[in-house]
Each structure stands twice: as C-alpha cells, then as structure tokens.
C-alpha cells in the first residue's frame, strides 16, 4: 500500500473525528510510527479542525464556568459561606404565597438599589476626601520643609551674631592687641584683622575682606618673628567671622598668603594678600 493513497483515503479524517473502528485505529497507529508524513497529515487536519471550531466558537453562558469552579472544588470556602443563604431563601420562597413573594422581591430590589446608590455615594465621598487629604498633606510637607530651612538659617545667624559680639568685645578689651592687615599692593582693598591676646597669646583672625579661595587653595596666616615667617595656622573656609588660630608667643607682624590646601612650610611671597605690623 502506498502511504499517499492511504493518506487520501479518508482514514485520517475518520480517525481524527472519532469515527474509526478499533481495528482501523490500531492500523493507523502502527502506520503512524513508520511514516512521519502520515503523522504530519493527521496534525494538519487536526489543526484545521481546531481552527474551524475556534472561528465558529459560541460563548457558553457565564454561569457554567462558575458552576464548574465550584464543582471542581476550587472555591471551597465560598461554597460553605453561600449555601446557608441559598437554603434560607429557598424555604422562604416555598412557604409564602405568590403575592407576598412578589412584594418581598420588590422590597429586596429596593434595598439592593438603595445599597448600590449608597455604595456609589460613599465611593465618591471617599474619592473627594482622599483628594483633599492628599493636597493638605502635600502642603503640610512643604511648610515643614520651609520651617526647617528657616530654623537652619536662624541658627547660622545666631552663631554669626555671637562671633561678631565677641569680636566687638575684643576690640574694646585692652588686653587684646588689634592688628589691622592690609593689601600691600593695595590692588583689591583686601583687609583682615588679627586679635592677639596679650595674656594667653592666643591669636584670632577676622577675614573682613578676602577673595574666595580656589578649591585646592587655602589662606595661611604667618607671624613674622625677628624677620622669619612662622606658621600661625590655616584659615578654615567654613569659618565666616572670628576664627581661632595658633598660639603665637612673640611676633612683630602678621601676613596672609594663599597656599595649597593644608598649607606650606614656607610662605609663597608672590601670593601675599595682606600684611600688618604691630
């Protein structure tokens, strides 16, 4: 037998549609193992049949799916919850006369309608209230942020004020030697002031006017002792008013140079910004 002839004999269709007799099924299944083209033809007809059925599908009523899900035990919890209600409702229906049923049905409808309306109204109210809550919350957050900023700047001003107060006290205090330091070239009107405690020999520096140092640079204070420069400390860029420097027991003059970050052992005279002698 030629397999082509067999394929075209209607045997495939008969097999796929379930019309074949047991002996025909057996024969075909044996042949299928030998001839891949037979298997291919079966697959092809099955696929065509499936597509045809797919294109002509009729949607079944929705309750069938729900019934199946219940019947196959996917929703055990909901069955037990629902059944008493169903029983109660049924017995109710059986015992009362028809008219009463209709009346109670009408009432139930009314109640159902009322609860739907109430539910929708409550949803709407929730929505509105939630929107209000959101905007109020956003405003509250903004105000909170503003308050924190204000508090921070307030603190900043307080420290600055305290520094200026102590500076003005030093100026009035006779135990302090005040050294005015000026720009030797007088190019940029740079000006700083050193407050030098005569007793403790502590040195305080106020940078009244100095250009902003570059990131990798830092101002360094020098004390000139017998013609030699002695390191008197680095000017902290974070210090905005009166800055405590190193203790200097003896000096004739003070100078500030711009040095590399962290300072240098010897001042770079080309970068001399201010100078003041006692």
């Amino acid at each position, binding site marked *: 037998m030629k397999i082509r002839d067999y394929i075209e004999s209607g045997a495939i269709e008969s097999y796929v*549609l379930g019309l074949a007799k047991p002996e025909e099924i057996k024969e075909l299944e044996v042949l299928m193992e030998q001839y891949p083209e037979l298997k291919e033809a079966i*697959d092809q*007809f099955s696929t065509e049949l499936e597509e*045809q059925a797919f294109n002509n599908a009729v*949607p*079944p009523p929705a309750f069938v799916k729900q019934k199946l899900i219940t*019947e196959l035990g996917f929703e055990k919890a909901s069955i037990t919850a629902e059944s008493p209600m169903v029983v109660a409702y049924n017995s109710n229906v059986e015992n009362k006369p028809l008219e009463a049923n209709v009346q109670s049905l009408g009432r139930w409808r009314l109640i159902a309608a009322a609860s739907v309306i109430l539910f929708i109204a409550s949803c709407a109210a929730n929505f509105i209230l939630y929107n209000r809550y959101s905007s109020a919350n956003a405003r509250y957050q903004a105000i909170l942020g503003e308050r924190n900023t204000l508090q921070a700047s307030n603190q900043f001003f307080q420290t600055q004020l305290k520094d200026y107060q102590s500076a003005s006290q030093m100026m009035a205090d006779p135990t302090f030697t005040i050294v005015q330091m000026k720009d030797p070239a007088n190019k940029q009107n740079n000006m700083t002031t050193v407050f030098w405690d005569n007793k403790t020999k502590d040195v305080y520096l106020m940078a009244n006017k100095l250009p902003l140092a570059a990131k990798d640079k830092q101002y360094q204070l020098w004390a000139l002792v017998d013609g030699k420069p002695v390191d008197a400390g680095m000017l902290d860029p974070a210090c905005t008013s009166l800055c405590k420097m190193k203790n200097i027991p003896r000096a004739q003059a003070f100078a500030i140079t711009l040095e590399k970050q962290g300072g240098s052992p010897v001042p770079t005279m080309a970068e001399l910004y201010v100078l003041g002698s006692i």
Partner: protein
Amino acid sequence: MMLKQRDQGAFTYLYDRYSGSLYSIILNIVPDRDLASDVLQEVFVKIWKQIESYDTIKGRLFTWMLNVARNASIDAVRSKGYQKSQQNRELTENIYDAGGSTEINTDRIGLKKIVNNLKDDYKIIINLSYFEGYTQDEISKMLGIPLGTVKTRMRSALIQLKQVIK
C-alpha cells in the same frame, strides 16, 4: 505539562480557551441550550478528571477534547430523559413559541454549518455518523443502501469535508 498540575489557573485557561469551540459542537448535537450547557459542564468535569489519559503522542489536545464532547453529547441525546423531554416538548411546542424560545437554529453554527454545504448524500451520512453516532451498519439499514455504498460515500464525504474545512 501545565494542565496536569490541576490548579484553578490551569483550569481557567483551558476553559476560556476551549469552552466556546466545544459548546459549538455540543449545540450541533444537542440543540437545546439549557441541556447543552449541562453537557458542557459535564464535559469539562470529564476533561479535568481524565486529563491523565490524554496522550500527547496520539494527537492534539483539542482533538481529544472534541471527541469527549461529541461522545458526551450523543450520550445525552440518547438518554431516556432527553427522549422523554423531547416528546413532551412536541406537545407543548406552542407554549415555548409564545414564551420566546431559547433555541436557535443550531444547524447554522460550527461544524454542522460546513456539513450542510455538502452534497445531500454526503450530508446525511455525516449527520448520522458524526452528529448522531450511528455505526455504518446501522446507517446501511436505516437508509436501505448496501454497506459498501455507505463506506464509499463516507470516504468521499470525509475527503470533501477536509477540503471545505481548509
């Protein structure tokens, strides 16, 4: 295979994908929509419980399900209860018509629609064998034609059917 895991997700997938196709074939055999819905439910329970017996080597899943649906539908039509209800229906036909029947012409949907386009000789053979489940012997006796003729017509009918399904 996913379907053999037997969870609700797998079942929902199976149902959503195939229920329409299977309902269509069931309606071809069981024209009463209410009964067809019952059969569909029964078919999916069967499919779900017997999915182990489906052999992927022998054919496509849909082919197997289609056969389950066809057999269940023919069984339903042949059951004593259905025969009785059909007799009663004939008596109360007028009432049904007055109340607006749930029935549609199920000859115009699915596979039956295609079969109805075949030659009369072929149509009757396919209807009796495929949709009503009679054997070739029975058909031969019912139509009063030789078994050999039934076989030849059946063969030609199936070949034609294949052509029109394409």
